[in-house]
């Protein structure tokens, strides 16, 4: 199995999502955990431990789970000794958290019709089921699907347009 630099960068970006999901955005060591996971993965590739390319995702995810576990164990050990007084390093900045990107997200959302915002909020933020949303907004199953995907698609277009302008 061969890996080009572009694929590696994609893995890095995606691993940051995974690690942040597990350790939280304010964890100062997200990038270290990602780097260690990638290093172990590359070593496994070099040693030809990944025979089926289609299992690369599960393999990488498994490696990352181990690194996360080890990191957690290390943090608890430190906490037991005296780390409460230790000053944390800067937290890793998640991709969507810079002020400019937050502004781009806000602008992209503000350009959506209110109905689109309502359906997206109900689904992604309030976590309502399709049935609940259909009932409260008077939509059929088919109308809900169309409305949700169009709203998300419009947001995506608005967002990338805004980012491009910046």
């Amino acid at each position, binding site marked *: 199995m061969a890996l080009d630099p572009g694929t590696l960068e994609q893995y890095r970006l995606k691993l940051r*999502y*995974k690690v942040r999901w597990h350790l939280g955005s304010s964890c100062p060591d997200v990038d270290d955990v990602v780097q260690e996971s990638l290093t172990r993965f590359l070593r496994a590739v070099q040693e030809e431990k990944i025979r089926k390319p289609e299992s690369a995702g599960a393999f990488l995810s498994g490696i990352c789970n181990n690194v996360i576990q080890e990191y957690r164990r290390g943090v608890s050990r430190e906490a037991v000794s005296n780390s409460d007084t230790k000053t944390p390093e800067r*937290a890793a900045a998640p991709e969507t958290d810079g002020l400019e990107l937050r502004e781009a997200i806000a602008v992209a959302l503000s350009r959506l019709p209110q109905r689109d915002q309502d359906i997206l909020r109900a689904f*992604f933020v309030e976590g309502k089921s399709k049935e609940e949303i259909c009932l409260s907004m008077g939509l059929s199953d088919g109308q809900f699907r169309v409305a949700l995907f169009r709203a*998300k698609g419009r947001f995506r277009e608005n967002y990338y347009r805004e980012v491009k302008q910046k």
Partner: protein
Amino acid sequence: MQFHRDPLFREELIRDYLLKRLDAETAESFESHYLVCEECFEQLRVGEMLASGLGRSKLEVRRVEDVVVLRFAEPAQLTRQSFELEELTRVFRQKDTKVLIDLRRVTKIDSAGLGQLMSFYSHVVKNQGALKLINANTEVQAVLHATKVDSLLETYNDEHQALKSFDHP
């Protein structure tokens, strides 16, 4: 698991992943998949942007000339694992070197919150900038004083005065 069999199924999966509602096995299965699937990862990214943009943020961010002013709109605690501390950390960008944090609505701060403030402080100082605080309540002020953080971070009670101090350090 067939992640592409139905677009709505995938959206629900992404939503539940972001809301941390998936069981460990399904979350692991989705993570293994999106690590190698561009399409699902892109949908996840957009879903996260939507969730963060539409979710009610407690932190107001505004810019007064070259100073970024951060203020909590609701009562907030800068304590270990608090949502507010996480949000403050997220918003505090590497590029920003003149930052004023309004602590008016901060009701409690602990060593994690102080540590994070000191981390912001060393970052801005390293970049020839400044971090200042305003409107700390009596309790927060007492913690800042007891830990001598106030000897490093200038604190003000008036925003105008605080903003002016960035030009005349």
